[in-house]
């Protein structure tokens, strides 16, 4: 288990770094898909197979396909390269590191809460994670679920209007 975690970690971090450092957006996109796969591995390890599947379906499947499609449409690799000056790179990395250190500080200094829930790994395995999530989604979070669907609907219309040739 431990070993699997470290392997996936390595893949995730490496591919994330490649995402932001590759010159060609298409390459970045492919590395991002790799990264998402690593993430779905984590979800499996955390007893959330449903999420893992969703990760691959939604992110790797839907979103990344969309991204790649856009890159293809725009033919971005051919257009003028956009370069970031060193100045900005330096500040960006510095700030990211500061944020990183700070968050790590919180994680280390933070006191861990006692587990209060009833959904231990055994329970989840017994009922099945898909069923648990489904029950919650359609009872406690019904309203949010409906709003989310409206949001998606709006987003579809929005995307259509934005991408239309003429406003």
């Amino acid at each position: 288990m431990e070993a699997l975690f470290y392997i996936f970690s390595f893949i995730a971090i490496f591919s994330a770094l490649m995402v932001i450092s590759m010159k060609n957006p298409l390459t970045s996109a492919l590395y991002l898909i790799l990264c998402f796969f690593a993430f779905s591995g984590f979800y499996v390890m955390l007893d959330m197979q449903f999420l893992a599947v969703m990760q691959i379906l939604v992110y790797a499947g839907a979103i990344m396909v969309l991204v790649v499609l856009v890159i293809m449409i725009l033919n971005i690799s051919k257009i003028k390269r956009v370069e970031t000056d060193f100045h900005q790179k330096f500040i960006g990395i510095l700030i990211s590191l500061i944020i990183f250190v700070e968050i790590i500080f919180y994680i280390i200094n933070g006191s861990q809460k006692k587990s209060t829930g009833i959904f231990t790994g055994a329970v989840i395995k017994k009922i099945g994670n898909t069923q648990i999530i489904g029950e919650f989604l359609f009872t406690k979070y019904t309203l949010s679920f409906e709003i989310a669907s409206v949001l998606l609907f709006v987003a579809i219309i929005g995307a259509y209007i934005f991408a239309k040739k003429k406003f």
Partner: protein
Amino acid sequence: MSNYLILATIIFTIGAAGVIIRKNLIVVFMSLELMFNSANLGFVAVSNALNLVSGDIFVIFVMVVAAAEAAVALGIAIAFYREKGTADIDEASELKN
């Protein structure tokens, strides 16, 4: 759990750095996705450690939002490119005027 959290932080930082230093619209968008995912990972990890499922539910909603966002953002990207002929977000300076 803290392992997962540290990993999530690393990915988050990388995503943030990408957002700051890259200028390509598409890459910035992908970096944002990275940050989303790291947050998702954090949710799931904490939820798992505390024996709860609310974190997992939340992840689903984040995914919904991400999908919606992707649709709109990429629509904007197309419109933007059509308007400016480039994907450099520094060209998007209408706010200034």
